[in-house]
């Protein structure tokens, strides 16, 4: 697949490396001119291309949002229509109760199939993925399967937790956030909350 990783901070280059390792074609976009992140991409995710967000998204089969939440509103929404988009973002600082980002992402990126995942894993715990269970929440079964298949490719064990609104189960404040939970614990917690 062609993967677009938006974000060249803590998380973006790690996911790019995992995707490259699994044989995917990867483009990374930071904010603004790609020349600003060329050096970073060259050393931290060699083999990935540094592009503008618009160019990276245009070609992609799968887009991963790994940018700070407060930057999300600066994304141009038009390019995302018809794309499968992974929301790996969190409110920061955490809000007092789990508060979904994904419904806001879906509302803004009209026409995209948004799937919440990976936001509950710290970047230092992602590489190697080592079969770690990750929750996946989305409204489109097709998009959820695309994301789950990608996550399996890069070494995770994807566990469906329900529709996009259930992505709140993965947010800061949830017992699943930042915990090395196994598949069984995801399933049990999801069942208790539904």
């Amino acid at each position, binding site marked *: 697949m062609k993967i677009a990783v938006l974000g*060249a901070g*803590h998380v973006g280059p790690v996911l790019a490396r995992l995707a490259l390792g699994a044989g995917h074609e990867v483009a990374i976009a930071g904010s603004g001119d790609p020349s600003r992140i060329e*050096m970073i991409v060259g050393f931290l995710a060699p083999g990935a291309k540094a592009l503008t967000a618009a160019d990276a998204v245009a070609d992609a089969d799968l887009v991963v949002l790994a940018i700070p939440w407060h930057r999300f509103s600066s994304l141009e929404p038009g390019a995302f229509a018809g794309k499968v988009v992974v929301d790996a973002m969190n409110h920061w600082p955490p809000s007092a109760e789990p508060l979904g980002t994904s419904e806001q992402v879906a509302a803004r990126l009209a026409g995209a199939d948004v799937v919440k995942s990976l936001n509950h894993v710290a970047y230092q715990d992602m590489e190697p993925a080592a079969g770690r269970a990750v929750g996946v929440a989305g409204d489109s079964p097709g998009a959820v399967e695309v994301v789950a298949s990608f996550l399996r490719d890069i070494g995770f064990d994807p566990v469906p937790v329900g529709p996009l609104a259930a992505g709140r189960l993965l947010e800061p404040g949830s017992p699943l956030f*930042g*915990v090395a939970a196994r598949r069984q614990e995801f399933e049990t917690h999801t069942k208790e909350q539904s």
Partner: protein
Amino acid sequence: MTTFGLDTFGDVTHDASGTPLSHAQTIRDLVDQGVLADQVGLDFFGIGEHHTADMPLSAADVVLAAIAARTSSIHLGSAVTVLSSDDPVRVFQRFSTLNALSDGRAEIILGRGSSVDSFPLFGYDLADYEDLFEEKTHLFAELLKGGPVTWQGKTRAALHEQDVVPHTEPFPTWIGVGGSPQSVVRAASYGFSLMLAIIGGHPGRFAPFSELYKHALEKFGHEPQPIGIHSPGHVAPTDEQAREEFWPHYLDVIGRLGKTRGFATPTPESYAHEVGPHGALFVGSPETVAQKMARTMKKLDASRFDLKYGIGGLSHDSLLRTIELYGTRVVPRVRELLD
């Protein structure tokens, strides 16, 4: 030149019965810890700014000044100074004063802050996290050049041909980086030294950061600068003793922090991994810690290692023992291994 230091966040210590000591006593004990670090021949003692009841070291430079008055060789600095929520002019003045008092022994490690308690305290918005650090680092770099400063930005009043006192010799300036590649490039763009804060996971994964930093320094036309490592640890006569002493406090502190920061709550298995050869905890006997330090320094091409000792709940005596073993046993052994 290879140098070795100790960092602390000034966690509240407990007495022998497990009762927390007062903030005031914890701070006074910290001065004794800094003095011991000097006596055992260490190169650097750093205090990390925090603003919580568990870590009350909100005015680290005052404590550093007290240590300066009782020591003669050790360099004294922050680990880190949260520049984003401070005024670069004030920070420069305080560290220039420390540099004067200590006869040129001040160092500063600037950071964006991974614990962000200072943002609401001083009225800053976390949404400005990046811009604040970028602008303030720029002003700080201008101040370090000495001479009148002209500067304009969005985060504080502009300066025009401003003489900022006290005048002092330039002191080493580092940028502390937790995992943001942009921060590595930023450090290189100013020609500042790079301090890699490695607090979890395989330290070896930071090797591309060292390569990126060296390449970027060259690209920006700066001379090579030191790369340092800051990692948590605890030293005791045996591996078993060190691991057993550290574990309950690590579980307590990291378990609470992880809930908000997204890193996993420790388990006995994850702890065994972190203290083992592929983890980020330098916990063990002097030989175990020395071997791991030497390996990590070689892998990351680092010439400085700062062990972040002490975690909430340990006793002052236990911290003094770690400092003594680190200075007298660990560091000489690492020097041997690196030769």
